């Protein structure tokens, strides 16, 4: 469905944020992208959603294709119309707009009134709270509720592929669990998901496939469950000290580019 092929992205012509990343998001699957700060996760999403230019970033080489279409020169509005919708990092709900207006704003990309009405029903069903608090300003919702609103707002455009940028950011563990369930439910209803996360426990829990980005390159990839078992992911992202010597954690049953460590590139 979405396929990225040896993508290179730079900012201001100098900073290489993504270096030769290739990945696939198959139809109907949840794909997780893990990585620490500065790994290139957000840049990857910006490239897909077409907001890279707003940040003075540039695709140097490689391609991003959605189905048959090359996404290279699309603007964000066209991307949304094609069925790719992003939930931005930090939720970014419109605090001065009411909850209802936030949802309306989410549907601005499509003209199909019926599709919008269906999407609104679906969002209200999935998040009854958004219906209850429809006339309140977005800024008055709690962090978790705002994340639900941000997801609901994106669903208003009836996406084929939903891009989520760190939905767990700054939320309590219980809420993060709920968000994991929501993602699984959205996927069950037929939407593919690309989930960018630092919270590996949640991400690997819902994902079918996963990629680990390290300083702009894919360092590990494969089946999410298998990846969760690897020592490297255990040690770096899941917080388990499995081996005393990190150098011994070389047994990786997945396609691994190179060894992963905290400090070296």
């Amino acid at each position, binding site marked *: 469905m979405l396929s990225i092929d040896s993508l290179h992205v730079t900012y201001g012509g100098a900073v290489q944020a993504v270096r030769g990343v290739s990945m696939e998001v198959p139809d109907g699957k949840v794909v997780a992208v893990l990585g620490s700060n500065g790994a290139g996760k957000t840049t990857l999403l910006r490239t897909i959603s077409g907001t890279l230019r707003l940040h003075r970033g540039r695709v140097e080489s490689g391609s991003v294709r959605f189905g048959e279409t090359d996404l290279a020169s699309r603007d964000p509005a066209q991307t949304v119309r094609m069925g790719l919708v992003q939930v931005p990092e930090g939720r970014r709900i419109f605090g*001065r707009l009411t909850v209802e207006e936030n949802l309306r704003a989410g549907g601005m*990309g499509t003209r199909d009134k019926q599709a919008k009405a269906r999407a609104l029903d679906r969002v209200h069903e999935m998040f009854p709270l958004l219906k209850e608090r429809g006339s309140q300003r977005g*800024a008055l919702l709690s962090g978790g509720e705002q994340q639900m609103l941000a997801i609901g707002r994106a669903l208003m455009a009836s996406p084929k592929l939903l891009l989520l940028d760190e939905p767990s950011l700054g939320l309590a563990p219980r809420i993060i669990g709920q968000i994991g369930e929501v993602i699984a439910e959205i996927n069950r209803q037929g939407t593919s998901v690309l989930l960018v996360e630092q919270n590996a426990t949640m991400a690997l829990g819902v994902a079918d496939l996963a990629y680990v980005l390290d300083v702009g390159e894919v360092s590990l990839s494969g089946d999410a469950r298998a990846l969760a078992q690897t020592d490297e992911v255990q040690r770096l992202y899941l917080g388990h000290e499995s081996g005393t010597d990190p150098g011994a954690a070389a047994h990786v049953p997945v396609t691994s580019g190179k060894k992963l460590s905290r400090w070296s590139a």
Partner: protein
Amino acid sequence: MTQFLSLLLNGVSLGAIYALIALGFVIIFKASEVVSFTHGSLLLLGAYSIARLSEPIGFFPAVLVGVAITALAAFLVERLIINRLRGAPVISLAIVTIGVDIILLTELIRRIGSDILNVPHPWGGGSFRIGDVGISENRLIATIVAAFLIGLFFLAFKYSSWGVSMRASAEDGETAALMGIKQGRVSALAWVVAGVLAGVAALFLVGSPTPGVSPSAYTVALRAFPAAILGGLDSTGGALVGGLLIGLAESFAAGYQDQLLFLGRGFGDVVPYIVMIGVLLFRPSGLFGTRELTRV
């Protein structure tokens, strides 16, 4: 008392016209993050077009065409200049609009010359009286039309798709873009609306008690500027309140000129700026401007 009521009424009517212009400033600022100094010349363009066209095509068609010309000019400024400079610093954009303003203004002054063009308002120069309290018919109609347009604007701003898109992209442009809201379109539409409002304001500004279209109509837009600023540059409600405040202040200062003689003649002309400075000293972001509302 009669004088007071008269001045009050005239102040409100003047304020309604200022509010039309100030609303234009505000929505342009919200949509394009530009402080538009082109408004003075747009206003004059509207007045000039209406005055010149009234003779050949009749008054009401001239009003329609004149307002359309003003809106078109605003649209072109946005498309040809502002849209291409998106992301440029606010100061550069403001200075660009000053440049556009000077060019347009110079051309209009050249065309108008030293004449005062007459706009043949069908309602003429008569005045409407309740007892001893009077207001020129032109201003009365202006107040009604302005109230109608402002009401319409606020309804659209609150409920229409354009209004929601506009408020969403004013609050967070990048996120609005991620929702598929086209910023270029939102911004262009804001300029068009501002152009229409300026055109309508021009129509009434050059009627009684003002003698007709002369380059001095330009300074009126400059007085609407403090109205927008003191209301808070990003608040549409603020533009309305600011417009009324400035209109009232100007009307009273001019009306009680004799009592205020120690301040010198023509005090009414500077009052808008004094009010603005007074408000900003205590509320730096204007009466209703945003200080910071987001919560992360």
